[in-house]
């Protein structure tokens, strides 16, 4: 209707949608633009329904709004919705609690509405009368009634799908009874026969049509097409061309689906079996526990002593301590090589390898390495029995027992020396001890750095100060230190030092010593320190090495070689 063919008097440029058009205000355009001209802009078909009469009213109203400069209040009258008299609160109880996350939901209506048959007023009346005759114990509930009715309806639907069309007789009770299945519960069946009569009456009253009103679906009769009540037809699917390739493809796909389904099923059955076993085991444990308490009771009564371990305590070995096995190696004081990050599986063990946990594997591996190292060490010691190894950096220091890991302590524990003032400026610096304790949480390195607990990553390894205590011969206690600025005991040397004061081009603090980081001693030492760190990490994660105080690092950059310090009793005060 909007399309009007008009005689054009002059040709105009076509409107291009890609072109930028100037945006103007009303006052920037000349008044009353040529009406004709504006009409030459091609009218756009909105596809708005042509038959919709009010559409024209709308455009009229809008035209009026534009023309008059006033918006006509547009109102399309519609039939009213009014408040219902039904008791909303009763019918729709307040059950909904909104989950924090967006709802995800896939159950269907059928899953959610229970028995689809709903009692009519007639049903209610019938049931009331029926129950009156019955004694209290055997009354038929509404749910049971509906279950039976629903069963009758559904059974009829499957047995006589065209009951409404072909005037087939109402099914007999015997026919229906033969169909009883799990959809109709035991208690409901008791009433089935009585309800049948009612159902049959209702059914007959409606010409053997379904009692619950149903939609009309296509029946493939000719009448379907124009029947306004027939709805939701299937869309005929375009026939896919049948080729051999396609067939194979489809077969493959089905096979694959089948296989996947089988696998999933198998998995589920295993899970089920496992859970059953667990249940059995729990039952067994409980039994054992109970019998033990019985035994205990009896023993107490008969006042038998002894044998408690056998009878009353679980003999099952405690589960193997988990991966921290390397601790033992550390304790033995033999620094082994650190566990490799990935376990390369021995070839032969692939079969049940799935069942072995990675932790176990790692532990085993590192144990093996540690064992190997220790063995060699022992061998070495045997060779050296009676000999003094006077070489530089002997593998086994002849007189020292290899320092036991446990002998290494953090210097600044509560019972020992106070923590030196923090070098890293921190508002909590004053209360370092408290911080250290507070730090024994999970927070590892990162925050620990601020709290001067673990050696910071960015300070060079050799600059970090370390301590250990050893017990020497005769019970002498020695504290080894590393990276701590030596007190300037050698005051005498001042003069000497002075002599060299300006000799180099670098200040003494910047002096560095070349270190061969790959040499054995260093590796060993580093490993040992690392082990120590690990252990402490496990005990109190954050507080690993409070002794590695940064302050001293700043004071003292010496001892960069990483050598074990000679056993000098010191006091770092």
């Amino acid at each position, binding site marked *: 209707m*909007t399309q009007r*063919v*008009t005689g054009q008097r002059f040709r105009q440029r076509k409107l291009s*949608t890609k072109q*930028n058009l*100037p*945006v*103007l*205000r*009303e006052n920037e355009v*000349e008044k009353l633009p040529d009406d004709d001209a504006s*009409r030459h*802009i091609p009218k*756009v078909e*909105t596809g708005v329904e042509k*038959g*919709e*009469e*009010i559409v*024209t*009213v*709308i455009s009229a109203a*809008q035209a009026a709004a*534009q023309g008059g*400069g006033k918006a006509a209040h547009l109102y*399309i009258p*519609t*039939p*009213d*919705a009014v*408040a*219902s008299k039904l008791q*909303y609160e009763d019918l729709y*109880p307040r059950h*909904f*609690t909104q989950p924090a996350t*967006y*709802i995800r*939901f*896939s159950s269907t209506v059928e899953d959610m*509405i229970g*028995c689809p048959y*709903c*009692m*009519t007023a007639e*049903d*209610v009346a019938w049931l009331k009368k029926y129950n009156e005759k019955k004694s209290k114990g055997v009354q038929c509930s509404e749910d049971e009634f509906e279950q039976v009715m629903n069963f009758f309806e559904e059974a009829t639907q499957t047995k006589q799908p065209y009951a409404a069309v072909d005037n087939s007789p109402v099914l007999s009770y015997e026919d229906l009874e033969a169909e009883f299945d799990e959809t109709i519960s035991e208690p409901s069946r008791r009433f089935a026969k009585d309800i049948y009569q009612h159902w049959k009456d209702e059914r007959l009253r409606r010409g053997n049509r379904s009692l619950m*009103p*149903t*939609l*009309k679906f296509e029946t493939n009769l*000719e009448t379907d*097409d124009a029947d*306004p*009540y*027939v*709805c*939701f037809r*299937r*869309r005929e699917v375009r026939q896919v061309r049948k080729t051999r390739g396609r067939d194979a493809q489809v077969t493959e796909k089905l096979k694959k689906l089948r296989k996947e389904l089988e696998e999933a099923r198998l998995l589920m059955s295993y899970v089920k079996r496992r859970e059953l076993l667990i249940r059995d085991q729990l039952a067994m444990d409980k039994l054992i526990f109970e019998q033990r308490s019985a035994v205990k009771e009896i023993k107490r009564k008969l006042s038998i002593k002894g044998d408690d371990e056998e009878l009353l305590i679980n003999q099952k070995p405690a589960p193997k301590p988990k991966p921290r096995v390397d601790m033992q190696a550390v304790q033995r004081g033999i620094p082994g090589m650190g566990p490799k990050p990935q376990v390369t599986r021995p070839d032969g063990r692939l079969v049940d390898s799935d069942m072995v946990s990675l932790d176990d594997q790692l532990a085993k591996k590192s144990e093996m390495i540690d064992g190997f190292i220790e063995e060699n060490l022992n061998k070495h010691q045997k060779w050296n029995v009676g000999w003094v190894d006077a070489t530089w950096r002997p593998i086994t220091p002849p007189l020292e027992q290899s320092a036991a890991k446990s002998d290494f302590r953090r210097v600044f524990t509560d019972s020992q020396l106070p923590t030196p003032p923090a070098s890293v400026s921190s508002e909590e610096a004053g209360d370092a001890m408290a911080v250290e304790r507070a730090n024994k949480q999970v927070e590892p390195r990162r925050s620990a750095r601020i709290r001067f607990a673990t050696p910071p990553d960015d300070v060079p390894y050799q600059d970090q100060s370390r301590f250990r205590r050893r017990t020497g011969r005769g019970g002498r206690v020695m504290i080894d230190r590393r990276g701590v600025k030596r007190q300037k005991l050698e005051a005498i040397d001042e003069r000497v030092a002075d002599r060299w004061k300006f000799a180099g081009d670098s200040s003494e603090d910047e002096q560095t010593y070349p270190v061969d980081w790959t040499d054995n001693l260093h590796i060993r030492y580093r490993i040992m320190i690392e082990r120590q760190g690990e252990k402490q990490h496990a005990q109190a994660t954050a507080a690993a090495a409070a002794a590695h105080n940064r302050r001293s690092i700043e004071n003292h950059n010496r001892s960069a070689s990483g050598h074990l310090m000679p056993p000098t009793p010191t006091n770092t005060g």
Partner: protein
Amino acid sequence: MAPRENSHEPSGTPVPVETGFATLAQLRVGVKAFVEKDGEKRKAEILMTQIRGGKPKFYVHYEDFNKRLDEWIGAERIDLSKEVEWPAPEKPEKKKAGSSSKTDKASQSKQSKSDQKNPKRSRSKLDREISATPEATSVNLPGKAPRPSKASGKENNELLVTSEVTDGTTPKPEDEDMDVVDIQDAAAAAKAIPAHEYSREDEIEKLRTSGSMTQNQTEISRVRNLEKVQMGKYEIEPWYFSPYPIDFVDSEMVYICEFCLSYYPEVTQFERHRSKCTLLHPPGNEIYRDDYVSFFEIDGRRQRTWCRNLCLLSKLFLDHKTLYYDVDPFLFYCMCTRDEHGCHLVGYFSKEKESAEGYNVACILTLPQYQRKGFGKLLIDFSYLLSKREGKLGSPEKPLSDLGLLGYRAYWQEIIVDLLIDGRVEANIEDLGAATAMTTNDVLHTLQNLNMLRYSKNQHVIVLTDAVIEQRERQKAKEKIKGKRSIDPDRLIWKPPVFSAASRTWNW
């Protein structure tokens, strides 16, 4: 256009409308009489008569009103003190062949309700005969013989009006020719466009492959079949026919469960249902939530029952919606408000999983009990948000209803004016579309409709008219008072669903 040319013929010889006084007994289908409506007398056409409870009842259509206001009335509301218009006498047969569907429609509407169960027989026969022997006019319409005058009378009457509008040879400017009289005529004309322009076969084929809006006049011209609907806290008067079970025509009230949308013809059944129903929100995934509304996405294929129920419900309020085919190829985006009772369906729009014509909405509806509260705009906004997320331009499926068009035009206007008003000096129609996910055509239509697209100084310009600016200001002021509800794109958790070829073809 073809049908109108067809209708030119009678316009040459206009048949005067026959008027006169009538008695109650003389009233019949096709008669136009004055009927009291909301305290006013309005001219209404009788579409159907029936005896109910011993009294005659008339189903009337008020002129100039949408069909949704058609209603059953008692004889006491008909004003017989005024003259009635009689349906025009029968026209030559030739006429009827040309507009068979129309005739058919008329005949169909005359059929009593019991008859409606099986209208096809007479109809298909009719169609066949018409198509088979278009010239054999005398043999035509044997079934209609007993009541020819009524049927053809109505048709002719309407066609007559049509011609009056269309045969005006001098084109008038679009915006000016719409005075009241013309509107009436146009309305009648629109109604009278014969449906054979769009054959039923075309229609079905179109529906099979896409969309859910019917273009076919015969599809939409049915007498409303439900009296009243109870849903949630409201009782609603249906507007249009919906293929609920045929038994429901006898119920005074049909009860619809607010959550699962199941339908029950009597209150006892409904109450029983409510005691068992555990659904509390639309059965799909929530994809959007703000403190006002939630949106749920529901796949017609997975939630067939629920979506069918929804379609039946919405058909009560959508004239052009068709339920001819099943819901499988659609996704339903349902907007809900929440409280402790559950998520109350407020409105929804459906969307084809794959639209050949680039529609981003198939049907869109705010339930009548929630209308005029700004929900429609949220729905439209959300549909465009989805299109933006998909990186596509979208447009609603046509035809739009009157209310739908109103809603869309308001939305388009607001969005486009907002974009233009920011002080830019140039605008490009395609860019406007891209920024709003609107099709170029819709942008053009909006600009044109607001008289913003003009030709000045030898070039096209976009004019922000005073009227448009004023309207926007007023709207802003209103929003300030009432608070503005809008869709927040950040709260949409959604990826465009992908449907494999298999899920589209293995429909059943």
